[in-house]
């Protein structure tokens, strides 16, 4: 077996194992860490293809920055251990999801196997890889010539993301007009009061038996 094939199989296996971990682990922190394994596997695959710059970016941006952000969100918001896992809104939806997933995998495999090139792990490039020109230069040249428009308009995308993040995190000073129980916005002022009550009750129901919440629960029980 050639070295390239060996590298491909090993890093591919790491990718798949990491991806399975993201789905199967119960603890969200473990999910995020499994994602790191997948991203590292992809980085190794980039190295095997001679794309050293992409490999570095993969590790720095994805494994470094993005997964750390995920972990921040998980730790700051305190996602419950098995929050949504037991809830099945439509009966049999999980079986259906497995069937769809397997058929998607089958379709991808058929597409791959029917293409003329069998996977070998060997480097693939349309232009000769010249050691004199580093791949950073090549990517830079491609980015600022053929793909200049796609590159530049990404700025608009980032602007939208910033505007959206600021807008959605802002609270309205006005009274809310509806609640989840009464989406039609009738009796707005009356419901606003009721909404405050239910929000206290909700926090008691969903949160775990932590001491602070237990106190509120006791207070609520006492007042009723």
């Amino acid at each position, binding site marked *: 077996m050639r070295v390239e094939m060996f590298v491909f199989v090993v890093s591919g296996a790491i990718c798949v194992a990491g991806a399975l971990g993201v789905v199967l682990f119960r603890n969200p922190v473990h999910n995020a860490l499994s994602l790191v394994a997948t991203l590292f596997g992809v980085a190794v695959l980039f190295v095997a293809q001679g794309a050293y710059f992409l490999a570095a970016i993969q590790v720095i941006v994805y494994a470094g920055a993005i997964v750390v952000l995920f972990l921040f969100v998980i730790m700051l918001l305190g996602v419950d251990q098995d929050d949504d896992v037991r809830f099945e809104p439509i009966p049999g939806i999980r079986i259906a999801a497995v069937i769809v997933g397997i058929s998607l995998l089958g*379709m*991808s495999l*058929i*597409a*791959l*196997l*029917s*293409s*003329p090139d069998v996977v070998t792990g060997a480097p693939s*490039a*349309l*232009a*000769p890889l*010249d050691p*004199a*020109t580093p791949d950073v*230069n*090549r990517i830079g*040249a*491609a980015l600022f*010539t*053929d*793909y*200049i*428009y*796609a590159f530049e*308009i*990404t700025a*608009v*995308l980032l*602007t*939208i*993301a910033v*505007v*959206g993040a*600021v*807008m*959605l995190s*802002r*609270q*309205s000073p*006005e*009274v*809310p*007009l*509806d*609640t*989840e129980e009464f*989406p*039609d*916005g*009738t009796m*707005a002022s009356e419901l606003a009061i009721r909404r405050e009550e239910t929000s206290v009750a909700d926090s008691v129901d969903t949160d775990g038996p932590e001491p602070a919440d237990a106190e509120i629960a006791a207070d609520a029980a006492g007042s009723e």
Partner: protein
Amino acid sequence: MIGLLAHTPDDLAAGNFSHSVSWSAIAPALILMLGGILLLVIVSVFRGKLSSGFFTAWTVIVAGGAIAAAIPLWHDVQEDGARSEMAGSVGLDGFSLFVTGVICISVIFAALFLDGYLRREKLEGPEWYVLLLLSAAGGVTMASANDLLVLFVGLEILSIAVYILAAMHSRRVTSQEAGLKYFVLGAFSSAFLLYGIAFVYGGTGTTNLVSINIFLADNVITQNGLLLAGLALLLVGFGFKIAAVPFHLWTPDVYQGAPTPVVTYMAGGVKVAAFAGMIRVFVVTFGPTYVNEWRPMVYALAVLSLVVGALMAIVQTNVKRMLAFSSISHAGFILLGVLASSDQGTAAALFYLLVYTFMVAGSFGVATLIGRTGDGRQNLGDYRGLGRSRPGLALTFTVFLLAQAGVPLTGGFMAKLYVIGAIVESGMTVLALIAMLSAVISAFLYLRIVVSMYFEASTDSADSEEPAELSGPPVRIPKLAGLALGLALVAVLALGIVPGPATRVAGDATAELVPEVEVPQ
């Protein structure tokens, strides 16, 4: 320009890789982008000193400016033929310019309805208009994309802005729910589209539509599994954006929950841009070589959208949900024009999109006003008695509904006529029959709303002799919303009575893939 690493080291050494940047070719998109960002800057400089009318006026002027910038380009293209610009990633042809105009029209309507809406709901914000303009810039980019990467970035600009707009009514929980639903499902479908683009790149070696077209014309791929899988995944991505069955499940919930003026843009501009991207990829790029492969898939989508859209609309009691399902059935009709995969079909689809933009802007515009504070009075019962208390508004709504049903002398009739004509021309008579049947079924739905406005008596049996009165607070029509409704009404009627000019323009708006002309250094 084939492949990511197309430039050989020799090219790099010689500095032989510069393309000319043609600012005029991207002028409409540029005006929309700059208009949005400048508005943001102006607002931060003159904080609190600007009235909300200024934002509306700015948005209307910017969108009008984009249309004005497209007109000289249109004459250019009609005289000198289509061309590719910006390293071959922007296609300047009649098709992209026509779609640009339609998207800008949708933006103008949304801005006019937003003005009174924001005041009524006591919501602040130039951000609504900023996001609207930037989203339209994404739509224009998508319609003129000659490269799958540009198409994808355009689609994301278009959609992410709309996800935020859907959730922007900070005083309604349902609006935030709609935004979240739209975002999660939309991100999912974008992933499918991206996966499809990767497969197509794997199958053809390029993301450039012109190069793909030439590559497929020159080569016969003996094992095309990768390309077919890519086509299927691309179809999933587009199917979600145009809300075709079975990728429609988000539509009723999001249309119901999102702020109604935003829905006028969501159902109008967003769908127009998505159809433009779909026609560019499927009809223009893969049409000549792979039409027999994708036609059965699109056929199934069209039939399902026509039938499910019409049937599900009947059982709804919420008017916004009804209109959502009717927009799904409209998507089925527009898919007929795509299915024809001919110049005639594309022209019919474009004409349909133009008429549809006016109809949907008018219908959801009326729903904006009837919703009143809280934007929640959207049940069929809330429309009862409108014919008595606001006869003008009821009559306007009736015209929009009849136009959607396809009654003669309205634009909706001509639009349906043209797409069905195109599909019959392509030899799919059975599909034409299904489409007509579906039109009959949905006519029932539109008449149901009309009956509720005019004829239905009050529910209390004691007062059944009394004329029905509108319940709840009185319906107010802000000046700008009234103006928008009037404009939409005139357009819908004019397109039905004198469709000639618009059909000629739509017929001239052909989509072409022309390789970029290399400018000698």
